[in-house]
């Protein structure tokens, strides 16, 4: 019976489909089911529901509201904090990654890898505490700066303000930059700098003609990922601000908790969808660049 199928005969269409299914898809079924049910399904449903009015008819009113005040300011602030925190963290983070990867011992590199992993995941109340202790009104650094003649709190500064939040965000953005940029540095081959020197290039010329052009795509890619991370950070903003700084993630959280009431039940979903669209604008180029530069990163 079975041998008949294998020997070729002429298995029926259904059967051919079944064998092909068993061979090509079945082993991946558990993963596909999990990702489908716990990820694709909620996201699809989110998008679907965001187009529903309170009495479940199709509408784009949720989106109309989502791009008006106060949500408009929320988006602008969130984009701003994403861009600024990424811009400030990207260059120092890249430089740090460079020195650590090229000059550090393997022990140091491993330690930094572990530490960056933990630090890039800090946030929320613990991170808020650390910065209250250092940069709060009674913080150590605040006192030290005051002693040196710079009173941080003489103006409008607070940790819950835009600038305050920006500083706190750097605490996880810098390690994140180290994590995502390090592979690019590792992929710079020693042969390239040696060949360049051998061909008559000074250190400066090597960086201008070879090193920087090779690192640049990864740098932009890392910047985009950092933007997405700063743009969508929730826990830390939630712990530090007290409603004084409108940010989209907080607005969504408020709508979800029922702390804020909105006339439109599905407004939060529409805000979520707009966030996804903005985030996708950053992450998709990131992924595309990664894929492209993987070509010469392969060895």
């Amino acid at each position, binding site marked *: 019976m079975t041998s008949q199928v294998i020997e070729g005969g002429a298995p029926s269409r259904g059967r051919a489909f079944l064998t092909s299914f068993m*061979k*090509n*898809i079945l*082993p*991946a079924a*558990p993963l*596909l089911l*999990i*990702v489908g049910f*716990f*990820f694709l*399904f*909620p*996201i699809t*449903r*989110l998008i679907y529901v965001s187009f529903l009015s309170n009495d479940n008819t199709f509408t784009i009113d949720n989106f109309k509201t989502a791009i008006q005040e106060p949500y408009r300011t929320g988006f602008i602030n969130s984009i701003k904090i994403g861009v600024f925190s990424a811009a400030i963290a990207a260059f*120092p983070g890249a430089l*740090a990654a460079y*020195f*650590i990867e090229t*000059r550090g*011992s393997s022990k140091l*590199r*491993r330690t930094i890898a*572990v*530490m960056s992993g*933990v630090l890039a*995941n*800090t*946030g*929320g*109340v*613990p991170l808020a*505490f*650390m910065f209250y*202790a*250092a940069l709060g009104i009674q913080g150590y*650094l605040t006192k030290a700066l005051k002693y040196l003649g710079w009173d941080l709190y003489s103006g409008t500064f607070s940790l819950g303000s835009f600038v305050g939040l920006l500083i706190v965000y*750097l*605490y996880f953005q*810098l390690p994140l930059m180290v994590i995502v940029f390090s*592979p690019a540095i590792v992929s710079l081959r020693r042969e390239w700098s040696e060949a360049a020197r051998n061909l008559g290039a000074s250190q400066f010329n090597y960086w201008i003609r070879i090193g920087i052009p090779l690192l640049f795509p990864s740098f932009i890619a890392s910047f985009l990922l950092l933007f*997405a991370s700063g743009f*969508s950070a*929730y*826990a830390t903003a939630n*712990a530090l601000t007290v409603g004084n700084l409108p940010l989209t*993630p907080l607005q*969504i*959280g408020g709508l*979800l*908790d029922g702390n804020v009431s909105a006339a439109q039940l599905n407004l939060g*979903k529409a805000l*979520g969808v707009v*966030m*996804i669209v903005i*985030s*996708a604008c950053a*992450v998709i180029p*990131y992924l595309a660049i990664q894929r492209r530069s993987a070509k010469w990163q392969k060895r």
Partner: protein
Amino acid sequence: MAKALRIKFQPPLAITLLILGFFVFLPMLSAFEYSIRTPLTGGYGWTHYIWAVTEEDFLHYILRSMWLAGVTVLITLFVLVPTMTWLHLSNSKVRGLIDGLSLLPLVIPVVAFAVGAQISFPEFVQNTVLELPFLYFVLALPYAYRSLDIGLNSIPLKTITEAARSAGANWLRTITSVIIPVIRGSVMATIALTFALSLGEYTLTVLLHWDTFPTWVTYVAQDNILGAIAISMMSLIIPFLILTVITLFVPERTIQGRK
């Protein structure tokens, strides 16, 4: 020992580490100082740590976070690792699809994901805390996938598998006793990563109204600030220790790919 000391002194590296160290440790140490203050005596002591660990909820929540993280790791080990091994071996058509899917969670802000999760799952899923490990698994997927991919790409998978199969091992045994040991470096790195992410996840957990160790800190902070700071310090140190222990078992080269 003497060898380690002979490593050349590197000014740029030293300056980098100094600045980074300052930025990382100043807030941490400041908070630590707060956490060991004893306002009653005006001195220092472990009062708040002792208070925290003797609190009934402490053990409850830390154990809960640990086993949720443990389940996430199990899903990674029993679903992701075999599937990826199979994908690398079979050149199946779904590989491209799964490649793309695995990166998709990077695109979705966690807040948006939380909203989607809240309105989608049937009641029996929403009522069990076991939904969390699956969601954590999704959040960790882009990183876990990449780290396993590096490991699987670095070994002659086909040859190893054919050798094991011709020696009489079935598929399951081939994966568990041949392939996993060979790529244990990147498996360990993946476990470390998944575990750390699950242990510290806050946004999704709190928006879905679950209580775990990270959300408990917020709750404690409402009436015992110093105690909450002590717990916060532990919530930083515990994953750090666990990660260090796990990565100690990782062979040198696999963490950052190959040099």
